[in-house]
Structure formats: C-alpha cells, structure tokens
C-alpha cells in the first residue's frame, strides 16, 4: 500500500467509512464498496478527493438499491451511412461543450463528426441550464474552472455577436443580509483579484445595494456587484455553434447512442454506436453525465460523475416585482456545493429562479419537486417580495455532471491515446464552454493531431428573423407577401409564426420533435405552455416527418387515432 492510498484510507476511516476499499495510482483514488446510503457514497468520494495528492477520484462505491451505472442499453438500429466514412475526430455529445469543440475543430482541415444520443443538440444538461454566463467569482483560485470561466465569459460578447445570438449582461448582485457578514465582501474582492474577474465592486450599506435594485425586500447590510455576469440562451448558443460547425463540414449523427470507445494497442480506433462503428483515431468525450462511462469503456478509470440535480422555475415574461440584475443572497450559510443559484432575467426576458442542488444516482430522470420549488420561492421571494409565485409558468430540472474534485476534468485519457475527456462540466460549464473548446484544441494539437487551418471558415448561416422581434413593418409585410406563413401566428404567447416553425425544421440540424421546435422558436414557452400552439406544432411536424414525438424516441406525442370499431 502506497502513501497516498494510506492517507485516503485514513481520512475515510476517521470519517467513519471503514469498509471502503482504496487503491491510489498516479494520483487517481479508486474507491469500491457498499455504503449505507447515497449521501455516504457522495461524501466518501469528496473526502477522497480532498486528500492532498489526489488528482481525481474513480468511485465504484454504491449503496443498497443503487446499481453501478451502465451506459443505456443499445437499441437495434439500422447502420448509418456515416459509419462507412473515415473520420479524424469523433466528438461524443452535442451539448454546449461538444458543439463548442466542434465549432473550433471546424476551423481545421479535419473530418469531424459529433454523435449524440438525444434527438437534438443541447437536449441534456445544456437545455436545463438557466443561461447565466457566470463572471468567475465562484471557482476556487487556481482551479481549471476559475481560469476557463473567466476566459470564456470574456469571449461571450464577441462570440454571440459573431453567431447572431442575443447576449445580455445584467450583472450579478450579491446581497449580504447581516452586518456581521459584511467582512465577506473583502473576501469577494480578494477572490475577484485572484481569479481576475473585472469590475467587481463592494457595496457597503443598504443604500448602495438599493441604488441598483430599489425594490429589494428585507434587511440588507451591503453586497457586491459583478458587472460581467451575462445571460444567453443555452440552446440558442449551442445550436448556433453546431450550425457554424455544420456549415464548415462537421457532420452530426443525432438520435444515436454511443456504446463504447474502441481501443486497440493503447490507441483509439473509433467510437461504437447503435448505428455502427465510427472509425477515428481521436475522440473528444463531452458526454456530460455519461462521460465517466464513456471513458471507462476505453479502459480509462480516472474519474466518476455523481449527478447533481438542479431545478429551475421560470416566471411569466410579464411578471412584476423582479430585478434588473441577477440576484443572489450571499452570506455564511451557503449551500455546500452550489453557488446557491440566482434570481434574474434570462436572455429571453423571463425571470428564472434557481437552481437547487440535490445529489442523485439517477442519470436519466430530471424531476422537479414541491420541496425544490418551496425552497427556491422562500430563498428568493424574501429578496424579491414583489414577485408573485403564481406567475411561475414553467419548472424544469437538469443534472450537473459533477466529478468528486468538483473541478473540470479536461485531459488526455491515460492508456487510451487519442481520447480527450472533457468531463465534470458542471457550472460554470456554459460560461467556460468557448474557452474549454480552445483548451481541447490545444490538447489535441499537443497530442499530435495535425491542425492545419482551412483557407475559409464560413460564418453561421444567417438564421431566419423572428416575427416578435421584427419592428420593421415593411420588412415583415414583404416577408408575408413572399410567404403567407409569416402572417400566421402559431404561438400566441410568444408570437411565433408558422414560417418560423417550418424554418426550424429545415436542415440537418433542424428540429424533429415538439421540444426541439420549442427551443428554436419559443413556440410553447409562454404562459399557456403550449396549450394553444402544441397541437399546431405537432401537426406541422407530422406533415413533414410523419410521427410526432415530444423529445425523440420513446416519447410519442399521442397514443394513436380513435378506432371506432367495426
């Protein structure tokens, strides 16, 4: 038993975990055993990760009622013609990380394919993000998170302008309630300096805070303001990245689960999917909550994901009593592994409150709960007493893909040459994504992937205009003359026309399901939540594609036609 193994074992024992088998190699602590409950599994993992000298934790710990996770069983699918082509790089996962990487890879003379289990890009943790582009105050100084968050945040304004994606910068307002906690502001300023977060100011006294947000409720002692915290549509941004990648020759294989990474003689040979083998020497593993299992399939047992559920609550766009900035209570009583969420405007104008943070072993289901809602309403309702929880029109949840070190894990896999893991992409994964992509390119180049810039890098194809944003009546009139569908409003709450829904279904990255249409057009995101437009969108999908699903395979929209017997 080496020193590190002994150290980890000692720490676990002193915390009461006697029966955890520990084996440390090259800084990776491998844990195995059965504990009493899931909280214990998670705590043991964290204890191991916090041991000095441990670089990452691979955990096969489990508890009664929880089986060790497995990649979802492969369905029988016909082979894809894309499986007959040779590839240079396969990107696994079409979330914001995978699509950002694909967009950067598209600059080079490479054959790149993105493979995704869901029926759409951004359909996993990305769609469940609240869209906050964090400024970089939260990550621990020196962490990969801190570096890539601040870099990524700085890239967003330019990148969004280039991609034609709307970007707002509401800023972050941390509110300190009690005078006893005002000393924390000095720590915030020190953190800002260390992480190089620009423009952070301490607000001493309630007046300074209320000058930014006059309607805040309750006792206020002070706070801080960070001006670079932004808001973006996470699916809008991801789709834009994917579209630009596709415009530069990157292929996308959606609705196709990966069953493993093929490795031969210590090198990646390809990626096995439900639709056949994608031959390639390089693989970027951006599989989110499944990233550890994808890595393990290549023999790489360096990290384990323990999902953390976050619930969000969306207010009607016309709801009153909200803030201009993204607000977060800040004090000594912080939740341990979340920044505590925020309440603020999204890029689309709706206010979003959340997320919560709930540890779970479940990797496929993302339920919201009454307790989650009550917690969020209590926490932010105190600060924003003018907001009425009756104006909450939507609730959703997602899974953060968390490693035990609580940092990003972006590195070459050991023992599987050509595999780059981009894992642990929890918050601030969205904010960091553009910088993560550059880091991945750097690693691939360093690993020997030839990076020759293409002569031409096409911009994202111009997306169709939005009816609701067309202030120019003459332009709209001309559009309706060429295509009357521009005059047919399908979704009344968000004012989305039939032309926009039809356009959203176009192309290789076009929407194939009701949810995918919703993410592209906002049809169904308003206060009636698809009550009026759902069947119209479903009808348009049916006219074009036949069967209608809510979100791809296994989610049929209806149960069938009415049979009248014979």
């Amino acid at each position, binding site marked *: 038993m080496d020193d590190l193994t002994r150290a980890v074992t000692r720490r676990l024992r002193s915390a009461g975990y006697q029966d955890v088998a520990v084996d440390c190699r090259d800084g990776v602590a491998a844990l195995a055993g059965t504990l009493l409950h899931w909280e214990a599994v998670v705590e043991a993992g964290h204890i191991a990760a916090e041991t000095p000298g441990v670089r990452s934790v691979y955990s096969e710990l489990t508890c009664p009622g929880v089986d060790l996770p497995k990649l979802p069983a492969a369905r029988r699918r016909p082979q894809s013609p894309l499986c007959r082509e040779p590839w240079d790089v396969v990107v696994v996962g079409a979330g914001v990380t995978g699509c950002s990487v694909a967009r950067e890879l598209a600059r080079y003379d490479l054959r790149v394919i993105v493979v995704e289990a869901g029926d759409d890009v951004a359909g996993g943790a990305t769609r469940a993000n609240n869209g906050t582009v964090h400024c970089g105050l939260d990550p621990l100084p020196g962490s990969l998170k801190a570096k890539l968050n601040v870099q990524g945040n700085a890239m967003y304004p330019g990148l969004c302008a280039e991609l034609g994606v709307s970007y707002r910068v509401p800023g972050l307002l941390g509110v300190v309630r009690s005078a006893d906690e005002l000393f924390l502001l000095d720590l915030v300023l020190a953190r800002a300096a260390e992480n190089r977060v620009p423009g952070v100011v301490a607000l001493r006294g309630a007046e300074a805070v209320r000058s930014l947000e006059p309607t805040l409720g309750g006792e206020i002692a002070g706070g801080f303001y960070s001006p670079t915290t932004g808001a973006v549509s996470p699916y809008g941004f991801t789709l834009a990245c994917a579209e630009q990648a596709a415009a530069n020759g990157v292929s996308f294989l959606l609705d196709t689960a990966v069953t493993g990474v093929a490795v031969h003689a210590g090198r990646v040979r390809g990626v096995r999917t439900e639709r056949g083998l994608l031959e390639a020497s390089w693989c970027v593993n951006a599989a989110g909550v499944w990233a550890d299992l994808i890595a393990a399939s290549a023999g790489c047992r360096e990290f384990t994901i323990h999902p953390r559920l976050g619930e969000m609550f969306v207010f009607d766009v*016309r709801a009153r009593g909200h803030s201009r900035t993204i607000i977060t209570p800040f004090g000594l009583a912080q939740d341990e592994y979340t920044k505590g969420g925020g309440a603020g405007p999204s890029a689309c104008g709706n206010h979003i409150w959340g997320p919560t943070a709930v540890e779970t072993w479940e990797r*496929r*289901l*993302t*339920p*919201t*709960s*009454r307790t*989650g*809602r009550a917690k969020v309403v209590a926490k932010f309702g105190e600060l924003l007493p003018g907001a009425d929880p*009756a104006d*909450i*029109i*939507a*609730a*959703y949840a997602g899974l953060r893909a968390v490693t035990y070190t609580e940092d990003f894990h972006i590195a070459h896999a050991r023992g599987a040459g050509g595999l780059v893991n981009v894992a642990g992409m929890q918050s601030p994964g969205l904010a960091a994504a553009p910088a993560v992509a550059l880091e991945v390119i750097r690693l691939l180049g360093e690993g020997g992937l030839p990076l020759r810039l293409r002569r031409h890098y096409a911009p994202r194809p111009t997306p169709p205009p939005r009816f609701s944003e067309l202030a120019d*009546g003459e332009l*709209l*009139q001309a559009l*309706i*003359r060429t295509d*009357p*569908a*521009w*005059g*047919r*409003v399908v979704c*009344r*709450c968000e*004012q989305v026309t039939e032309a926009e829904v039809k356009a959203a279904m176009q192309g290789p990255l076009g929407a194939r399901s*009701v949810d995918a249409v919703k993410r592209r057009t906002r049809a169904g995101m308003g*206060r*009636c*939540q*698809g*009550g*009026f437009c*759902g*069947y119209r969108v479903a009808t348009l999908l049916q006219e074009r594609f036949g069967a209608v*699903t*809510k*979100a*791809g*395979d*296994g*989610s*049929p*929209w*209806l*149960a*069938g*036609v*009415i*049979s009248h017997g014979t």
Partner: protein
Amino acid sequence: MGPEVDVAVVGGGPAGLAAAVAAKEAGAASVVILEREECLGGILPQCIHTGFGLARFGEDLTGPEYAERYAGLAAEAGVEVLLGTTVLGLAPGPVLRAVNPSVGLFKVHARGVVLAMGCRERTRVQAGIGGTRPAGVFTAGVAQRYLNIEGCLPGQSAVIVGSGDVGLLLARRLTLCGARVAGVYEQLPYASGLMRNVVQCLHDFGIPLHLSHTVLEVHGRGRVEAVTVAQVTEGRPVPGSETVVPCDSLVVSVGLIPENELTRSAGALMDTATGGPVVDSRYRTTLPGVYACGNVVHVHDLVDHVSAAAAVAGADAARPAAGPAVPIVAGDNVRYVVPQRLVTGTPVRVYCRVVRPQRDVELAVCCGSRVIGRRREAAVRPPELLCLDLPAQSPDELTGPVVVNCHPREVA
C-alpha cells in the same frame, strides 16, 4: 373592410359572436370580427356534448350547433369576419394592430372595440404538479381538441386532475373513445364542475371521483408512466398518503385564466379577483371605447350567460348608453361581483361567486339600507356563477356604493 369601422370585435367565440350580432342589431353600420382560428366559435366546435342554448335559444344544443347558430346570425346581420387573424396590439383611439396571411399587417380604427379573447387553461406547473416532463401531459382543452376535432387519442389510460366541467366531460369522452380513466382527483372537498356533469360523466360510467386528493408528481421519461396522488387537507398533501397510479397520460383540468394580455398591455384597470378588466354594467372597461365580455371579464360556467352579457357590450359599443355609474362591490361571502360598476338608467344582470359553500342563503344587492335585488338559494358553491337581475336604477336612488352579500336566510 375599410380601415375604419363602427365596432371591431377581438375573438369570434361565443362572446365575440354575440357582441357582433348585438352591435349590428343596435344599428352599427360596420362590424368586424377578428378571429385567430380558421373557424368561428372559439372553444365551442370541440364541445360536442349538449347543454348549450337552453336559455338563449330554448333548445338543448351541442357546442358546434350553438356556434353554427350564432355564426348564421352574424352572417345574416352582415358582420364581417376575418379568420386566421391575430391581433397584436391595442392603442388609444381605439386602434387595433393585427396580422393575417392574406393582408399582412394592418390597423383597424373603430368607434368601439370589444375584447372577447376568452381564456386559457391553467397548466400543471400552476397547479404545483412536479416530477418529470414526459409526453402525455395535456390540459383538458387540448385533450378535448385531440379527441373531438383531430380524431386522435391523447392516451390509453388517463388520470384526470381537477373536477372542472371540461375535466368531467373529458373523463366520459375518453371512456367512450376506448381509453381507461383511472380516476378524477379533486383537491377541494367538493366537485368544481356542475353536479349534472358529475352524475352524467362520472357516476354513469363508474369513474371514481377522489375528493380532497390531488396529483403531486408525474413519472416517466419519454412518456407518462404513472402519477403520484395524495390526500389533501387545507391545501396541503397529507404525508404518507401518497399512492402511485399507473397511467400513460395526465389530463390537467385545474381552472381557466382570462386571456388579458392585450387588455393589460393597453393599460385597462384590472380586477385581481376575476383576473379580468374592471367593467361597468355596459361592459365598458376603463379605456375609452374599449369593451370586454365573456371569459375575458371572468370565467363563466354557461355559454348562455356569455352570450347575454356580450350582447350588452355589443349593443353599447354600437350605441353607448348615457348615465352615471356607481361602484358595486363584494360583501359577505362574496368573492367577486361583475360588473364592478352599475350604470344607472338601464336594467342590469349582476354575476357573482361566493367564497365558501353555504346552505339556505339569500343573495342580496343593497345600497345603504335599501335592498334593490334579492334571490334565495338552497345551496351555493364557489365554482357556481350566481346571477341576479336588477331593474333600472335612477341616479337619485343610488346614493352610495352598492354591495352584494350572501347571508344565511332569515327564518321568517
């Protein structure tokens, strides 16, 4: 249609149709209905059950028949109809901004604008139902549309939450279409819909009605697999009372919300109790020349009431009545009163809902110590819309605010 009309009606459902016909009858030269859908009638075409028109036409009609009857009256009266037309804005004048595929963007200046947009359904989130978000969760109106217009089955086995009329009717309709209805769950200790619907739609088909129960969570990944239901006391789920009911669909029938985005954005004064604009007894909102009627003002239970009230609005839009108005407010055990202001000099029908169920009551409309209208009821429940006809009042008689009270009947 020219850019200027006498009366423009937003919405071609029962309220809009009745308002338009009444406006024509009252002498308006040009009346236009702007309707979003491709046909008139609003929600009526999908309400294929009977029970419509007993008061208005003295006949028991289905929803489509009632709509057709009114569409015929509108055509006879010379009402112009613009289908597939969405109203985007309402500005002072009043002026409507609208769009449709054939004309594009256009404006309509009207002497009177009647808002008759109806209502939308409360959703699962508004009912606090958590869990996953699979396919198979429908509001009752959407499920009804699939069954009765599209000819599609939304689910094979359904749980219905909420015992409003649409939910009750849907339980029967799903059963008749071959689906299984596991049960109707109502969080109140009494049904929200009409008693006749509880009997004819649930009892007659052996569908269980679980009072003081609600749905807490939806389960399932791609498609609904089950829901968790629980007992409710004082609005809270009782811990330990949860049970999981397997089903492939959840139909949410938990109430209606007046659609007033247009009304609100134009700046009309709203009544928080009704969710609709404040109106006087001629259905004038606080915006000059702008009327509101039907479910935009408050949610009705019978379409005949909608038509009757909308006719008052339409007639006044064509030929406004003069006369000062006094406020009319909710008193004991009354949640709200519509209209919120009484115009003197014309007869008025007052609508109200109670706060809590009560037996043997007298509904009384009083001005100071003077009773100007009363009605006895054996029992009242909050979901029921109560109405009371008042004779025309002279301005001298109405010296102060008018109050509607629901009191226990005095034993004489």
